[in-house]
């Protein structure tokens, strides 16, 4: 067992273990937690953060950070919704809206990547700055929340495909993506770039391209999260997704990825994001007075992190 823990990525297992504990607790305090409906609704709540955390992982593995994901999500949301509204609510309009959203996300990722990898600006402050710009553009596109999304879009998102809830499909596909990418050289290169940048360069890796790709991946996942949010809220809102930036970083850390880069993986981030969501649930269903909810949530997150770090050191 100890050897197992010591092996590849202990923190990955720890996030899983913590998640199991929380699921058990939640099952105890919330009756009906395991009812398919309830599970689906919880997954719907957690899914956007899960997606953003996946993308954030790749940026962090490469030793960078992306604070702009929330703003990217907002921008993609308003673009998608505006395009759908402008083209009427047909299936074609839906597809066009989604495509436009993802294209914009790619553009956002490219901008981040160019500024950071080519012009070599400091990533944290740069993505904070670009985040402000993306928010500004979102406000420009849609000055206040509104516009409706075609019924087909959000009812499909909230419903099921082949008897499997759509949100579960999305989670499974995201998981598959993570699984596949972890087996490609690219993820190893990301870690190299984050672990020892000059070493990676000296080893002949195309630093700039790798970092840009990471930012584009992050933005695409933020865009996918925005499509989910759009399905969940059936509306456009320029202020949407503001908590995704910091939330995704916490999820990545909880999932055992080192924020300094070079170590970790997106599977852990998925668990970390689910863990963060579950913490919120448990607190509520444990019947805590509301004044203590923020406090206790902060404490549990810290405790989970501390526990993970302490155990990982064994």
């Amino acid at each position, binding site marked *: 067992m100890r050897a197992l823990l010591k092996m590849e990525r202990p923190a990955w297992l720890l996030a899983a273990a913590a998640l199991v504990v929380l699921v058990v607790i939640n099952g105890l305090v919330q009756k009906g937690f395991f009812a398919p409906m309830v599970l689906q609704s919880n997954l719907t709540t957690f899914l956007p953060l899960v997606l953003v955390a996946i993308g954030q992982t790749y940026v962090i593995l490469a030793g960078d950070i992306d604070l702009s994901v929330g703003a990217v999500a907002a921008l993609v949301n308003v673009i998608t919704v505006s395009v759908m509204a402008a083209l009427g609510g047909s299936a074609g309009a839906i597809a066009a809206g989604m495509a436009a959203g993802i294209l914009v996300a790619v553009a956002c990722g490219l901008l981040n990547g160019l*500024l950071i990898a080519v*012009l*070599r*600006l*400091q990533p*944290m*402050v*740069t993505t*904070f*700055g*670009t*985040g*402000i*710009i993306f*928010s*500004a*553009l979102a*406000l*420009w596109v849609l*000055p206040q929340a509104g516009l409706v999304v075609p019924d087909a879009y959000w009812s499909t998102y909230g419903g099921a495909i082949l008897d499997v809830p759509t949100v579960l499909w999305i989670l499974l596909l995201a998981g598959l993506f993570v699984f596949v990418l972890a087996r490609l050289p690219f993820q190893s290169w990301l870690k190299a770039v984050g672990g020892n*940048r*000059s070493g990676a*360069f000296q080893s002949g890796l195309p*630093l700039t391209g790798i970092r840009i790709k990471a930012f584009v991946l992050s933005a695409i996942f933020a865009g996918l999260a925005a499509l989910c949010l759009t399905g969940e809220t059936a509306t456009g809102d320029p202020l949407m997704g503001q908590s995704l930036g*910091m939330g995704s*970083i*916490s999820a990545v*850390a909880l999932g055992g990825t*080192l*924020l*300094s880069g070079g170590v970790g993986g997106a599977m852990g981030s998925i668990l970390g994001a689910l863990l963060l969501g579950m913490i919120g649930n448990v607190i509520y269903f444990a019947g805590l007075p509301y*004044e*203590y*909810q*923020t*406090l*206790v*949530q*902060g*404490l549990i*997150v*810290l405790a989970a*992190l*501390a526990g993970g*770090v*302490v155990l990982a*050191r064994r």
Partner: protein
Amino acid sequence: MSDGLTSDINARPWQTKALTLLRDPLTLALLAIVVMLGIGEALSPGFARGDQIVRLLTVAALLGIAAAGQNLVILSGGAGIDLSVGALISFGAVVAGNVMNGADAAILPAILAAIAVTFLFGCVNGIGVTVIRIPPIVMTLGMMAVVQGGLVVFSQGIPSGNAAPALMNFINKPMLFGLPGILFAWLALSIAMVILLRRTSLGFAIYAIGANEQAARLVGLPVKTVRVLVFGLSGALAGLTGVMVIGYTGNSFISVGDQYMLPTIIAVVIGGTSLAGGSGGYVGTVAGAIALVLLQSLLTTLHLEVWGRQLIFGATLLVLLGMYGRQQAPRV
């Protein structure tokens, strides 16, 4: 070449000196300040008037004091960053407000109480980062939630107090040479920071730890203690900012410090301190804080749509960052 080793920095030819000066983040920040003042004055006459500049400096002082702590944390490296400063400013303000509750006599106890409490919170950050080894960004983010939650609990039923008149005058009214007291306080803090960083062993340790933690440990520097202390100081300076903020606003409320969190980081980075730790200083941060506040006011006075203001703000930030906050090229 191996003698005459006491050669000092002033012995360089003036060309090199001029070149270094031009690349210096401090010079760049000052340049940016002058340019923005010029633009402001051109667009809305009165923007660069003396008393308006004094008011801007007052606002910058609030940011600058909080950014001093942030600066220490970032300098000490190890991905050091303090996201809890905003929440701790709020906490400091609420504590100070409750202790002084409008009484001049209680100002000192209020300052001490606010600083003591926030110092402790800061130390807890430091302990989490050093002993338990939680990454600073997550530790302080968690602490932010805890402190905010704590404020909601704490402010229950307790009247959040008011600033004492003397404190409000100190921050808002001219004291000497037409300048309010807070500017002198900031000046004193700046001098203390520069001396701390350049001439004391604590300052040396902060740079050394930021540059190479392992090497710092091997030369006997108390790495963990210094780091805890640095986070503690960041907390305390946030608490002090909280006291000043309540003097500025007159009374405290639980989200009063939120708006300072990210600007402290930006001021530090614009001022030329590397987020990787180990290089930079406070003088640049002072310039960074002023530039940032100036930019914000400049944008306020422009008659623009909100998104336009935000766009300009973001873009200017990137330009400022691009002027010096660039990382090293892999190939030279």
